[in-house]
């Protein structure tokens, strides 16, 4: 294995933190959703790095199947999340998370 496992984990951790910052600091709902997509991607890199470096020798495939399920959940989450954002935009003419404060007292 030319590329050691820890390199992949470091890159995945960096991607996760960038996604986390994106999700925390954005006012635009779509920007937050993009940050969450980045975090899900870094989870996938971890899963596949562990599959490649540990599981291939043991012959099991849990890492790959888990990664496919994570991609499915990400697709479903993006679909429903963006439907919410679009209907929120249609009713309240805003995509800004600050203004969506109907639940606030």
């Amino acid at each position, binding site marked *: *294995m030319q*590329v050691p496992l*820890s*390199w*992949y*984990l470091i*890159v995945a*951790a*960096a*991607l*996760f*933190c960038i*996604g*986390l*910052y*994106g999700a*925390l*600091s*954005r006012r*635009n709902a*779509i*920007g937050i959703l*993009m*940050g969450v*997509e*980045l975090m899900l*991607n870094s989870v*996938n*890199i971890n899963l596949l790095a562990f*599959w*490649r470096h*540990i599981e*291939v*020798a*043991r*012959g099991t*495939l849990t890492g*790959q*199947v888990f990664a*496919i*399920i994570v*991609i*499915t*959940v990400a*697709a*479903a989450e*993006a*679909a*429903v999340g*963006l*439907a*919410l*954002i*679009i*209907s929120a*935009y*249609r009713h309240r003419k805003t995509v*800004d*998370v*600050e203004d969506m404060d109907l639940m606030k007292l």
Partner: protein
Amino acid sequence: MNVSQGVFILLSAVVLIGAAGVVLHRNLFRAALFLILSFVGVSGLYILLEAELLAMVQLLLYVGAIAILIVFAIMVSRQLMSPQFRDRNEQWVGGLLVAVVLFAVLAFILLQVNWPTAEAAVPEDAIAQLGQALVEGDQFVLPFEVASVLLMVALVGAVIIAREK
């Protein structure tokens, strides 16, 4: 420092620069394009990990489906794209701190642990094995069926929400 390590550094640079572009760029459409750039970079990383089916699935689903949904949503909420719209909430400093501290802690831990890695070649019929694992009775057939239920529920829910009454 051989070829694949060089390619790895190149690809992870593409991924991290794309991710930074997503997070920092004011114009949301450009941020979406950086997001697609980092998706393609991650797909290259999967090829380096010799999980080629996952690399193609990543390209097909993220670049071909999720990115298009995001671009559609951006095209819907278009008026608010004007640059004067301040796209950072007040607590962004806290967010930055949390992210940097988390990365420092993660990096520190990851470098300490010595993982039980084992050198092994990917089997020739890895895709067939994955297909068998997804459908075999004693392996992953339950997540396989639950995934289709999840998709159906997401489809029905999103159609109800998005439809103009």
